[in-house]
């Protein structure tokens, strides 16, 4: 049985594992950025649509 020890965190990643982790980190970063952009755009599109409907005709 492994006893919890600070040393357990000192795992040395192989070069392959480091490259794989970097690749996953970049993909997660890109996916999160894409998600933010998607929700931002969708909010603008939807609110823009509603705002146009609420706008007084003199302003249109």
């Amino acid at each position, binding site marked *: 049985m*492994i006893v919890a*020890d600070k*040393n*357990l*965190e*000192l*795992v*040395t*990643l*192989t070069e*392959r*594992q480091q*490259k*794989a*982790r970097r*690749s*996953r980190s*970049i*993909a997660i970063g890109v996916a999160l950025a894409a998600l933010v952009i*998607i*929700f931002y*755009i*969708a909010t603008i*599109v*939807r609110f823009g*649509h509603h705002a146009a409907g609420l706008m007084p005709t003199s302003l249109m």
Partner: protein
Amino acid sequence: MALADDRLMEDAGFRMSEATAGDFFALLKPRVMSLVVFTAFVGLVAAPVSINPLLAVIAILSIAIGAGASGALNMWYDADIDAVMTRTASRPVPAGRVSPGEALSFGLVLSALSVMTLGVLINWLSAALLAFTIFFYAVIYTMWLKRWTPQNIVIGGAAGAFPPVIGWAAVTGSVSLESLILFLIIFLWTPPHFWALALFKSDDYARAGIPMMPNVAGQASTRRQIFAYALVLAPIGVLPWALGYTSAAYGAVSAVLGAGFVWYAWKVLGMSDDDRSMKPAKALFGYSLLYLFAIFAAYLVDSVVGQVLMTGGA
């Protein structure tokens, strides 16, 4: 050197992942996903009302991610049989690049994310249809039908047929007869497409213990059923024109494509039991891919041209 090296971590049940982003992308079955994206796009464009182009992109992306998520769940569950089939042995889970737990988590998170995104940003009918499609593919087809009955691909084919209905629902908020005909075309196309593959990969399926039609009913029966489905599929492909949804141009193209499908299926029907090369089955498999792409492309072009003519190009 650290005390807790890789060996120690593995003994303790940990494994430092070597899965790259590409391995996770492969879990989404990108080739299947491309077909889903295309057919969903056709459903979305063919709908009689329009949608903001940015929302359309988001809808297609959500449908694609949902389809990919169901692919990841399929690869998680089927890792044991994928490992013994030459066609699938190099997939990320059986090859050991992605652990089953990682594939399961990935599939579940993407399923939830895609359905919620579609629901919140587009509409809840399309989100519900996407959720049902994921459930149908991952649970009904993968976990139940695939290993149980030679009709697996007939019933399970419904999962692959839903994308144009979801695309249509994303725009209109409803399901119509026209979108159901697009569903029917893919639904009837699926059995002859996969049975053609199963004919020349029957050893693979037998080794994995999957009850595909050639392994259960025999090759002769499978060839007859392929031909029967081709005879039904060809007129269904022309149905959108017969019901007045498209122009005669689509009707002509779909009739020619359908006749080609029947011709290739006829060649398969005439195959002898000793035919080891299975050239007619391979030819039908290739043609069936072309057929589906071409008939949906024809539908897409016809819809776009029809909409442009109706609005006078404005």
